[in-house]
């Protein structure tokens, strides 16, 4: 099915199952330990061996020798896999990192060897016996130092133009009555998902099966085939359940390559999980940025000039962090410019993490908006409202499909009690705490991607859905079941959903906030085909058939749905593809975040006291799951605001705090009650589902709202994230 014009009425409008708060259908499997994650497929293979990935002990240079004698003699050791005995490997087509280094080393903890043994403990013990001689080379590890030599990154998929310009920014900024010119920094961050990267690989002749934990299986098959030089048709990847990803498991990383190589070397199935302290420097992360923002406005608060320049670093061949993406769409303003620059750094690869680009960019822009509102002596909510736009600010002929940013701000202000906000910083005290409020807008793109699915109707009336879509904890299983139930007129208990297997029809996977809209649309297309097949089998007119309560009804004729299956089963498969509505309309999700913080007037400790997000994100398929996505992302935003930072040792060249004791993320005690309002919406330009994703919107703007609240509480403006007490302590007002 090709979707080329805005959707009219269709069966999903019934909202009989779709749109209803629904607990996740796989929840009981997870709470009873029956949902299997990559490392837990203990019945599927017999006698697996264990691989342990050894990370490089230097940041840049080359391996002169790997002394293996003692390790090989260590109990239980089966093989030691290195680049020297495997031969050169290619890189994947998305990540640029070489997943088994040698002889050259590109970054710290890049995999240099896989030690395979009968048990995990034996592999780990033997790994410690490897002695590796390195020749160190100078490297570049400091983004600030590399800023001036940074280059314009090439445009390409996931990389917007290095420079954009509308109107005459320079003149408008120079002549603006009120201006702001500030620089903001965001640090390197780690996804820090609960489940580490893990794979079990098993070869059967020249065919490879991997139970793994990656978000986009078709990318995984493509990349693994390319890296190993194996036909894609010979590779099967299975990721039934994923214990968190946040973009950190997009496609093939070192665990998959290590397991596949080790299994080939030993002739045994091999399990590999990356040890937690390796993940921070070995895999990917959200890269640090330096962002300069210039705003110009008229005294009545109309933005006339918006400039956003951004620097990030990466390995050679890595992409830039596209912080400017939101700025291009967020506010009206006739004269605008953006500029991206990319420095070469010899740190681990920077890549996608929840709302890549947008999260970091809005951390800067939305502080700048707060600062500008103060210069204009305007309420920051009002300042945002008057600069709203209903068309793409770079192309007035391109409207937003739907955009209720103003309603998000107004609804939030009302519900949060923004009128209690005291615009004077450091004016509110409660006991030993300074109290402040902050606000920020949110925007996140709403892409939708082609997705295929297969649906099977059996003679018991059970509909089984198959697609290689993944569920990274988001609720994919449930919204797909809701879609099939709605389309086929049955209950959720009549639907079986099978995901996460690359033998199923191809989906775009879980990424880019496109999963929900894309996957359910693919299932919609397959269900339309199945409805046709059912009507045909029952000799009912396709256009008149209604699917209700497990029956198919046309005129005065009515049959159980199961009758259509006959003795066998009825199978339909289709792919949803798209025309160019995405070019005709700017399609995004929107939100507003309101935060109240307390800052201890003596110690500078910052505690979030209240948070509210109002979101506008198309038709909400499952309010329960959508709320979970929002509060999860808001929690992650608290981390970004207040604590998450990989410390770079710019001499040695690595992220120092590479475990979960050193890299702090919020704990329960950090998170107060989180309030979420989901605005009614339905976007017919997206797909027949009229839905958008919401998995990433919730993190965008949160950190800035918190930073703004800290400023309101203390009068101390911090422009370098995270906002930690050491950046406040010398500037806090005298305790009262």
């Amino acid at each position, binding site marked *: 099915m090709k979707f080329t014009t805005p959707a009219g009425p269709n069966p999903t409008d019934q909202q009989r199952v779709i749109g209803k708060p629904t607990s996740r259908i796989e929840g009981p499997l997870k709470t009873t330990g029956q949902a299997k994650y990559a490392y837990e497929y203990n019945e599927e293979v017999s006698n697996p061996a264990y691989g342990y990935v050894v990370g490089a*002990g*230097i940041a840049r240079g080359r391996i002169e020798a790997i002394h293996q004698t003692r390790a090989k003699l260590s*109990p239980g050791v089966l093989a030691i896999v290195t680049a020297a005995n495997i031969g050169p490997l290619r890189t994947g087509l998305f990540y640029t990192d070489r997943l088994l280094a040698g002889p050259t080393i590109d970054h710290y903890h890049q995999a240099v060897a896989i030690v395979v043994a009968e048990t995990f*403990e034996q592999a*780990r*013990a033997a790994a*410690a016996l490897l002695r590796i001689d390195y020749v160190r080379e100078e490297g570049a590890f400091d983004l600030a130092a590399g800023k001036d030599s940074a280059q314009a990154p090439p445009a390409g998929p996931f990389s917007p133009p290095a420079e954009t310009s509308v109107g005459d920014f320079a003149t408008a900024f120079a002549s603006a009555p009120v201006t702001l010119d500030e620089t903001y920094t965001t640090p390197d961050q780690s996804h820090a998902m609960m489940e580490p990267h893990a794979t079990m690989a098993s070869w059967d002749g020249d065919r490879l099966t991997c139970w793994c934990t990656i978000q986009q299986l078709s990318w995984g098959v493509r990349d693994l085939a390319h890296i190993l030089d194996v036909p894609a048709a010979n590779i099967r990847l299975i990721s039934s359940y994923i214990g968190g990803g946040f973009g950190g498991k997009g496609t093939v990383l070192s665990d998959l390559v290590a397991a596949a190589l080790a299994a080939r070397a030993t002739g045994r199935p091999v399990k590999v999980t990356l040890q937690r*302290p390796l993940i921070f420097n070995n895999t990917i992360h959200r890269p640090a940025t330096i962002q300069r923002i210039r705003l110009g406005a008229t005294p009545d608060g109309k933005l006339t000039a918006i400039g956003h320049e951004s620097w990030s670093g990466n390995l050679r061949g890595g992409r830039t962090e596209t912080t400017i993406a939101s700025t291009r769409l967020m506010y009206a303003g006739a004269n605008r410019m953006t500029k991206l620059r990319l420095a070469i750094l010899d740190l681990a690869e920077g890549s996608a993490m929840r709302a890549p680009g947008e999260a970091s960019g809005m951390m800067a822009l939305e502080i700048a908006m707060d600062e500008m509102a103060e210069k204009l002596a305007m309420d920051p909510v009002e300042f945002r409202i008057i600069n709203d736009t209903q068309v793409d600010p770079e192309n007035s002929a391109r409207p937003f499909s739907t955009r209720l940013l103003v309603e998000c701000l107004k609804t939030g202000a009302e519900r949060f009690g923004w009128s209690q906000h005291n615009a004077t910083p450091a004016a509110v005290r409660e006991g*030993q705490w300074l109290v402040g409020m902050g606000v920020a807008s949110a925007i996140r793109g709403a892409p939708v991607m082609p997705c295929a699915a297969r649906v099977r109707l059996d003679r018991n009336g059970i509909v089984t859905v198959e697609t290689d879509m993944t569920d990274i904890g988001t609720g994919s299983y449930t919204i797909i079941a809701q879609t099939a139930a709605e389309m086929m007129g049955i209950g959720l208990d009549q639907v079986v959903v099978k995901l996460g297997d690359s033998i199923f029809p191809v989906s775009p996977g879980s990424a880019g906030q496109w999963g929900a809209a894309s996957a359910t649309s693919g299932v919609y297309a397959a269900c339309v085909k199945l409805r046709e097949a059912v009507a045909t089998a029952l000799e009912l007119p396709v256009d008149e058939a209604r699917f209700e309560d497990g029956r198919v009804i046309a005129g005065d004729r009515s049959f159980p749905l199961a009758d259509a299956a006959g003795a066998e089963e009825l199978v339909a498969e289709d792919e949803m593809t798209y025309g160019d509505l995405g070019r005709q309309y700017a399609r995004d999700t929107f939100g507003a975040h309101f935060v109240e913080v307390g800052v*201890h*007037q*003596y*110690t*500078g*400790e910052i*505690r979030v006291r209240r948070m509210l997000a109002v979101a506008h994100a198309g038709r909400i398929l499952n309010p329960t799951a959508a709320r979970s996505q929002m509060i999860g992302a808001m929690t992650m935003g608290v981390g970004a605001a*207040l*604590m998450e930072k990989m*410390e*770079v*040792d710019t*001499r*040695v060249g690595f992220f*120092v*705090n*590479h*475990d979960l*004791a*050193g890299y*702090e993320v*919020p*704990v*329960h*005690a*950090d998170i107060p009650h989180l309030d979420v309002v989901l605005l009614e919406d339905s976007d017919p330009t997206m797909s027949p589902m009229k839905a958008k994703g919401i998995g990433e919107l919730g993190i965008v703007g949160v950190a800035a709202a918190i930073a703004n609240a800290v400023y309101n509480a203390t009068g101390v403006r911090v422009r370098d994230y*995270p906002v*930690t*007490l*050491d950046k406040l*302590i*010398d500037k*806090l007002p005298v*305790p009262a």
Partner: protein
Amino acid sequence: MKAFTYERVRTVAEAAAARARTPGAKFIAGGTNLLDLMKLQIETPEHLIDVGKLPLNTIEPAPDGGLRIGALVSNTKLAADIRVRRDYGVLSRAILAGASGQLRNKATTAGNLLQRTRCPYFYDTNQACNKRKPGSGCAAIEGSSRSLAVIGGSSSCIATYPGDMAVAMMALDAVIETVDARGATRSIPIAEFYRLPGETPHIDNVLTESELITSVVLPPPVGGKHTYYKVRDRASYAFALVSVAVILQENGTGRVAVGGVAPRPWRSREAEVLLPSGAQAVTDKLFAGANPTEENKYKLTLVARTLAGVLNEAKR
């Protein structure tokens, strides 16, 4: 983890004998720190002597009116003991400010005293660390040092002692009782228990190779208002940026021990006598000779302000 042998002992005498028999052995009880360090090969004992079943898990009145805490009393039990809560509130609060409920159930009194630093360079075996590998250098001093010591360190090491319980015990003048392989016992005031790094940062404390902690004795209660204030980047489950253990008497005198700033809980009587003059005076004296890095100098301000907050709260 390096392969090791294991035995469980039932009496203190057996423990001492086992230790004498096997050089390079380590005692293990709760294992909440040692096992992590063994997995990372930071600790590589050839032999573990499990002392977890020794009869050292009671809290008894001491003859002088204090309390004798068995070495194996869990953090949970110690923090919840009614006598501790009533008479040594600073200790109860310090323990509850540390780790998590699960860890406190497992962690023992003696083991807590012996936990090793959390310096990130100590934890990464590729990096230079004189505490982990004597003579290899210190990558931390000019590296990422935001969490590290501002005083008491040396050119060899600026690691901090990471715990909370010992900071309170420092303020309480606790005494650590030990027995060695020959059966000889000794009592070590906690102020003399931890070593400053000097040129030998790999030696954390004054225990001899075979010495086993049997108990910790708290002197008779000193009264006063007890506070333990721990400052960190998140609300729970993090090591202190700084912490202050304060016992304040009605006349304004008192005791102050500080955590998170030095290789041991940091306390000075000369500083304490300045309590009536206020937090800044105490802090200036306590940190005379401090040698912070650019990244951790905030701790000096933070201690002064935290102490000021505690003193202010006590006045209410």
